[in-house]
């Protein structure tokens, strides 16, 4: 088992190097630090001295790949590539363009993100599975047909409208919870409810339809026919056999996004003013803070790759037929 995990991690390394090179090329080669400085300091009338100063303060004044003037290993380490890209591998994110410690910001801001994403995931999973089961149970009937039609209609509405509608209806019209904002500790609950609810409603269409298909596929299999022939009730078949087998693709689909929960949702967080990593990224994009965007791209990729490894491992737990090799 441990052997397998180690081997998978070794496979992941080249991918991480690839991601690193891509971000490096995007941020330092396609656009040079000079361009960034000019962008940040205002476009037209920027003196050379100001640009040099801006680069000095952020450590962008080094050569890109190879430092001629340094000696020994410093030829390689005293470069932008090493200082700003290679160091990401040990999660040393450095400082943002406005001078803040990115690593510290991330460790602070991941908790509000988790406060939104974890309840969303749990509530969503429970309700989508129940809806999917209900539609599968009533397959072919009016309940099923109208349910599927409703799903297609709900899928066709942009997520933005769920957020705007939810904010207007629950926050502004009914005055049940605050429209946006965040608080520490248990006071945060009243700010969490609305984003979770909106996320839940927004995902109903696509997820319910998908889960329904999974359950229906299971219901057409031989073991279900056998169970029916034994005289089991339809409900019992649904819960004992179809649900437990249908959960395999659902759970493995969930495992891959588990690590990414730290990142949070860009849209939801910025709409509801949650001080998590999603809004952190959006703010960085709007302030054109390249260091933060670069760190978040790398962090996001690492978490996704961890998710992929976890998925492979989780297969062996839920489905004993799968062997690791």
């Amino acid at each position, binding site marked *: 088992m441990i052997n397998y995990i180690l081997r998978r991690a070794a496979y992941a390394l080249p991918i991480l190097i690839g991601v690193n090179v891509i971000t490096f090329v995007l941020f330092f080669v*396609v656009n040079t630090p000079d361009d960034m400085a000019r962008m940040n300091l205002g476009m037209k009338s920027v003196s050379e001295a100001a640009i040099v100063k801006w680069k000095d303060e952020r450590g962008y004044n080094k050569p890109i790949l190879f430092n001629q003037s340094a000696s020994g290993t410093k030829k390689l380490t005293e470069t932008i590539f090493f200082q700003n890209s290679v160091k990401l591998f040990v999660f040393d994110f450095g400082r943002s363009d406005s001078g803040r410690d990115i690593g510290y910001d991330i460790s602070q801001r991941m908790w509000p993100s988790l406060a939104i994403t974890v309840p969303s995931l749990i509530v969503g999973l429970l309700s989508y599975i129940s809806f999917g089961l209900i539609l599968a149970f009533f397959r072919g009937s009016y309940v099923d047909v109208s349910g599927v039609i409703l799903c297609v209609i709900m899928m066709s509405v*942009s997520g933005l409208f769920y957020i705007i509608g939810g904010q207007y209806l629950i926050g502004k019209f009914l005055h049940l919870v605050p429209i946006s904002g965040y608080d520490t500790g248990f006071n945060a609950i009243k700010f969490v409810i609305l984003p979770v609810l909106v996320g839940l409603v927004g995902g109903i269409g696509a997820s319910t339809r998908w889960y329904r298909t999974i359950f229906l596929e299971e219901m057409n299999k031989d073991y279900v026919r056998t169970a029916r022939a034994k005289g089991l009730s339809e409900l019992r078949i649904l819960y004992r056999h179809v649900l437990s087998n249908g959960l395999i693709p659902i759970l493995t689909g969930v495992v891959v996004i588990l690590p990414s929960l730290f990142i949070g949702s860009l849209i939801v967080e910025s709409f509801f003013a949650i001080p998590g990593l999603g809004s952190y990224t959006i703010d960085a994009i709007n302030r054109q803070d390249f260091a933060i965007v670069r760190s978040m791209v790398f962090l996001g990729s690492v978490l*996704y790759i961890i998710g992929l490894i976890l998925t492979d491992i989780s297969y062996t737990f839920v489905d004993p037929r799968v062997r690791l090799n």
Partner: protein
Amino acid sequence: MPVIFVTDSLIFLLLFGLVAFFFYARKQEHLSAPWRDVKKRSLAMSSAVVLFFFVFLGVLDSLHFHPKVETDKKSETIYSNEILSVLDILLNDLRLKNEKTYSAPLASYSFSKELIELESGKKIRDYPRLVYGGATLSNPENESRADIIKRISFGLLYGLLISFIVINLIIIILSRSRNETYTTTLHNCLNKKTNTHWFSIFLTISVVLIAIAILYNLSKNYHVFGTDKVGQDVLYQALKSIRTGLVIGTLTTLVMLPFAIAMGLMAGYFRGWVDDVIQYLYTTLNSIPGVLLIAASILLLQVYISNHADDFNSIEQRADLRLLFLCIILGITSWTGLCRLLRAEALKLREIDYVQAAKAFGVRDYKVMFRHLLPNVMHIVMISIVLDFSGLVLAEAVLSYINIGVDPSTYSWGNMINSARLEMAREPIVWWSLSAAFIFMFILVLAANLFSDAVRDAFDPRLREL
């Protein structure tokens, strides 16, 4: 003087490709049989009609030109710097009738009170009359309701008349081509005895035409969806946004298609190190979160554009470049799914006898892929084009909201929502920009979803929704 943007030329390339593909698929039984199945489905045909109208407007909006400037001298013609499309000319009424600021749908008065000077010289604070909204009415407070009802009913009437003519024309053409009498064809269509579900097509055509006629009739005297902050007609914005939505939905797939097909087939066909390299490539790209990659790229494009501001002749050209770039970036983040599917299919196909035979005869590898693999994966390509469309249209709105979508000067539903969002706090609420964007997006995406479901069911019975 015509102007051709890069996206325009790609749109026409796409249309040309569609026509070419239509004639190609007609001869291939395995491709045309599923389409016949699609044609039998009522919902699919209704959505196809709706999509057709959207595409029609989008294509009209892609024919750009510099309009002539009216001058005294007849010898030389001067072209204005402005770039207009054919759709702009058709919508001249909507485009040029600008108010001062917000006004509600179908209103005759402005949305907010202003200081008005009466003829007697007295100044009062009241809602000023709109310049164009309800302009023909002398006393809008009493007359506007009756006027609106009158315009709607006339629109209904015209719509019915036009759709009657159009449907009759279609039936006449059909009966000619089938060597039937007019009444037989009419009878067959209405009783759903035809291979194509003409009944639902006719129904949808009339609904759409009636809606257009009513909108047209109302917009002659009103702003049907109100006006926005700078007084521009919201209906005009929504109609102009159609092109952006369609471009994002179709060009993204078009841009990534050659790579996805070539890479997927090569990986599956050659296996070995080629397969390893290609798999590595798409796993790497896939592991970068899509939104962040788009954000990073758009950020860099902004830097590029502002550093090379002189290279662009006009704002429109710059906006067009950004639109194209967005399509490319979206394509890069979304080609991996198709590539993986094609690779798996190619792995299966390469073991089949006719491919082995071709190889044994010494047919070159690229020829085997082009002749024997490509036609047999075409259905997968088609399904993925249709399935991706609605997701991409929705993605555009979200991306524009976080300022990494299309250029702020481009008309798009995302930009409409984005600017309307700031007015949500107003009391009374400014809701019309949002609703217009909502309605147009919803209709397009719903039609695309229903159509793609039918296409998927027809082409891939294994994936059929049970």
